[in-house]
């Protein structure tokens, strides 16, 4: 479903991703682990076209999306929940979700999106900026889901969120995958969340994938060694 080959990216002279290869089949949840500065966010931004990749190809469901503008990538099935959530804070919750509809041409938000996040229904007419961190995170996921994606990218979704909501989020992401057949790529620093949510755990170190194993039978001690400073 998501096919990345030799992805190379960076800022100016500094190279952050060095020829990264990754294939994610349909319906798989992949967690990409790594310490700060190892390239997780750059990978996400390069996939979305926010940072332009200098080399390599990205394909979603067989369609190459490299070189496209962000909105065209969304139209081809990528959806993005950025680090820090970045919801539109002066717009209401409902309007925030509706911004995701742009590429689908729909006028109303499908009911099953609000089913996933019942807390948003009560807050429909509140401004996004006045929600708590956990609610904003759910809003950001709902907004991404509104564009009817094939691949959902989440960049450190657990940052600054209380443990009970983190566990709920893991359940929700698995439910989204089961109900919509979505492919999910989530970057993470918290190993417990990654083990909770993912089918497959990767480790990103200095812009390359250095570890790749399925959830079942994972060597936790080995992975956490990569994460300790």
């Amino acid at each position, binding site marked *: 479903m998501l096919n990345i080959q030799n992805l190379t990216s960076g800022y100016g002279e500094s190279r952050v991703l060095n020829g990264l290869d990754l294939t994610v089949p349909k319906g798989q949840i992949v967690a990409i682990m790594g310490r700060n500065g190892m390239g997780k966010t750059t990978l996400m931004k390069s996939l979305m076209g926010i940072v332009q990749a200098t080399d390599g190809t990205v394909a979603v469901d067989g369609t190459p999306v490299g070189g496209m503008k962000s*909105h065209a990538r*969304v139209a081809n099935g990528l959806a993005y929940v950025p680090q820090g959530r970045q919801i*539109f804070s002066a*717009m209401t919750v409902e309007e925030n979700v509706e*911004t995701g509809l*742009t590429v689908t041409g729909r006028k109303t938000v499908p009911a099953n999106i609000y089913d996933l996040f019942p807390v948003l229904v009560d807050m429909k007419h509140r401004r996004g900026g006045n929600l708590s961190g956990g609610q904003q995170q759910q809003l950001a996921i709902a907004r991404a889901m509104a564009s009817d994606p094939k691949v959902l990218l989440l960049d450190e979704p657990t940052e600054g969120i209380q443990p009970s909501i983190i566990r709920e989020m893991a359940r929700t992401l698995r439910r989204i995958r089961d109900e919509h057949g979505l492919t999910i790529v989530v970057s993470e620093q918290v190993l417990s969340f990654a083990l909770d949510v993912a089918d497959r755990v990767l480790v990103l170190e200095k812009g390359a994938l250095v570890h790749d194993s399925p959830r079942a039978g994972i060597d936790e001690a080995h992975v956490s060694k990569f994460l300790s400073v």
Partner: protein
Amino acid sequence: MFSGYSLPELGAIFAMQGFAGLILFSVFVLMALGLAIIFGQMGVINMAHGEFMILGAYVTYLVSQAFATYAPALFGAYFFVAMVLAFCASGLLGMFVEWAIIRHLYKRPLDTLLATWGLSLILQQSFRSLFGAREVGVTIPSWMMGSLPLTDLIEVPINGIFVMVLALGISAAVYVMMFKSGWGRQVRAVTQNRTMAGAVGIDTERTDRLTFGIGCGVAGIAGAAFTMIGSTGPTSGQAYIVDTFLVVVFGGAASLLGTIASAFSISQAQSILEFFLSGSMAKVITLLVVVGILMLRPQGLFSIKLRK
């Protein structure tokens, strides 16, 4: 300053100056609406906004000339055709300017000030070369002439009422577009976070161009209305640009309602003070009060409360 007037006279003066203020208010609102879209939403300081207005005024002048020559029977209706053409002309020029200049400067907001100031000089000279340095005026259709006598002392001009109705109509239309339509939602998303708007699937470049075009188009309509109350020259726009920025900043940059409220208070204060004091003293007092209020409330009259 009130001595020498009897009480009913004072009442009539306040009413008529108040009404003159309402006409000024209408032009302010039409000018400021375009600017509120461009400056308030996009953060672009468009110094050429006055020239976009004057373009609309010249288009109105050309249309009125064409009607007088080719279709004198329909002369009474020329204004409506002129309004649409003024919107299109200013809007198209606006979209071209966005494509050629503004889109390269979104990350450097202060440079838009210089670039658009240069653009305003270019436009002024183009007007001078095309239409001559002398001011031109349109013939107001006969149904818009005259005034309605309300009492013995109070009379209100019909063209003034027309301009006011127009301003209210356009304000309502802009409000509906910004807050009830899909396009408005996209505009607000792009202005709040351009990168993220792209990443949820909004074509930010197209939205920016359309927004700038509509903001300039509304200025064109303001120009059409302007011909009803004043004559048009190459530099007439200059006289309004400062006042208009004042209105937008005073009202609170992102708030349409604030823009309208501040246009109302500034134009009323100006108009009533002008009658009793000289024009420049009226301006001094309005500016001082506005500066004073902005020192207490830097965010303007109306602003959205959000947690930071």
